[in-house]
């Protein structure tokens, strides 16, 4: 991303002396940036270094920290909670990411139709995206009640005699969370819709003249031109899956089977703020960073093959 609107090459190119005016401007600029620079030092770089150092210690905050080397990292190999939280998070990713991408894409195509009353329909579909995870979780804890909740009443109504017990069961707790995400799919749809509206209408007109069918237009024009959006959504939803907390916290306390919703971040929260194992929890956080970094790098390296950038955006960001 180009950082400057008014930059002229000569002003920044010379490393040597600046004119008094330019020097004044530079001083002023750094003063404007000071709050952020301080923030980076105290709330970002400092904590990151501290967290890295902490991950090699054993510390409960009360006694002095004790250096344990790689013991925290070795411990994970035998830690049932670690495997469980990793499994829950991975299961959620595998279920949710393909489903959410397809659903959000499909919905955005529907909402992009130029029809009367579309504004109202869009409003309704986007509505859940502003609701807090806690509130949605509390609501769904009631909707998914296995015996008389409305979801299972509906499922029985359409002929499923033994609907899943959702949060009460080991296998169906994660799908229940996916269902909740589907209810709030509007948030992701907004981004796809913006992507769709960025596609030049002339392409569709040209395809019409050539006699292309709706499906051909979708697969040959819409999908390829949306790949940057899909790529962005893929990366953010991977990162988001590791950050799931509110829903898991509320629902683990409210009736869900123990451990069935132990998402990765909830496990870190438990290890640190409940069990006071701050060193071990820091190590868990670093493993999370490592895994997400590797995943994002791998996906990024494949992006050349399937993400289509128009010429004018090439070289940016």
């Amino acid at each position, binding site marked *: *991303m180009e*950082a*400057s*609107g008014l930059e002229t090459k000569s*002003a*920044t190119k010379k*490393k040597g002396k600046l004119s008094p005016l330019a020097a004044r401007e*530079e001083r002023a*600029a*750094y003063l*404007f940036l000071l*709050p*952020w620079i301080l923030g*980076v030092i*105290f*709330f*970002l770089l400092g*904590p*990151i270094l*501290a*967290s890295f150092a*902490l991950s090699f210690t054993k510390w409960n*905050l009360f006694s002095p920290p004790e250096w344990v080397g790689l013991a925290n990292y070795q411990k994970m190999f035998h830690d049932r909670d670690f495997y469980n939280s990793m499994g829950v998070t991975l299961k959620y990713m595998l279920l949710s990411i393909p489903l959410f991408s397809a659903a959000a894409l499909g919905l955005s195509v529907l909402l992009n*139709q130029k029809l009367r009353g579309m504004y109202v*329909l869009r*409003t309704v*579909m986007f509505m*859940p*995206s*502003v*609701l*807090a*995870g*806690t*509130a949605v*979780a509390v*609501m769904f804890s*009631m909707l998914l009640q296995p015996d*008389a909740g*409305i979801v299972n*009443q509906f499922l029985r109504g359409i002929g499923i005699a033994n609907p899943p017990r959702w949060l009460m069961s080991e296998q169906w707790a994660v799908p229940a969370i996916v269902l909740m995400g589907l209810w709030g799919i509007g948030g992701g749809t*907004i*981004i796809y819709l*913006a992507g769709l509206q*960025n596609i030049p209408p002339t392409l569709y007109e040209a395809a019409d003249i050539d006699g292309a069918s709706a499906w051909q237009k979708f697969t040959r024009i819409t999908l390829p031109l949306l790949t940057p959006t899909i790529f*962005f959504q893929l990366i953010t939803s991977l990162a988001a899956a*590791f*950050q799931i907390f*509110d829903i898991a916290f*509320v629902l683990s306390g409210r009736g869900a089977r123990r451990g069935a919703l132990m998402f990765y971040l909830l496990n870190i*929260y438990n290890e640190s*703020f409940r069990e006071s194992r701050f060193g071990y929890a*820091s190590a868990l*956080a*670093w493993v*999370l*960073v490592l895994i*997400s970094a590797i995943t*994002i790098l791998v996906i990024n390296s494949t992006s050349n093959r399937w993400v289509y950038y128009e010429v004018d955006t090439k070289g940016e*960001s």
Partner: protein
Amino acid sequence: MGLPSNIRGKKRPFQYRISKFSKNFMVYGILFILCAFILLPLGWMFTTALRPDNTPTFTIPPEFFPTKYWHWENFSRALTNRNLPFFIFTLNTLKIFALNVIGSVISCTMCAFAFSRMRFRGKKMLFNFLLVTMLIPFAVLMIPTFIMFNKLGWYGTILPLVVPAFFGNAFFIFLITQYMKTIPVALDEAAIIDGANYFQIYWRIILPLSMPVVAVQVVFLFLNTWGDLLGPLIYLTNTSQFTVAIGLASFATRENPNNNLLMAANLIMMIPPLILFFFAQEKLIGGIASVGLKG
């Protein structure tokens, strides 16, 4: 910043019109079903919130619209409940929100001003660094910042939820920078000729002109502070300081809460963002969309 406006329907050859009618019919059909999927749960919750105590929460068939019971006092009961007073929680959350607005708007617009309109060495590098910092997961920062605030004696106060806002936020700085770049440079130049200093240009010219993007920022800040559960959960110890999110979470995780009051409390948490959504829909959607496109 809104989505590009719809393109008017163009005249199509006749044979398209019939197939278009059935296609529209299908689109409407699917969307109505999806809207029901969104709205019915909310209706059910509202119905439940208006029930008297000691009536079964789950009825067969389910009731999606209140018909029998209209116990509006359930809302005031949730707001003034002695153990979990949601009115106090609302005030607490609004206080944190207000302080976040002050801190975040000032610090982020200042940085964005420098990034968008000033020349200085290291700008490109710092801006790229800013973008990279958006990728750092909160989980890594959570523990050391907790320890730091704990050592400062801020545990059990709202300071950890407020003070960081005064030190900028990468996402908002990025968003505002992109907006400020679109304001004509001639304004700055004219002001410099008139003898204004940089702070005056920022405060008198650019900041007032940036209000549309600041409004987007404020909307996002509200949704973030209103919905934040983890922050208050880590730092707040006393019920009298609780925010709505943590109040609701502790209500929900109690043994056998009154479901009607729980749903009333849940609506208290849902209604302010919804009101905001109806008033700021364009801004919000434009904000989310621009992030997605530029990310």
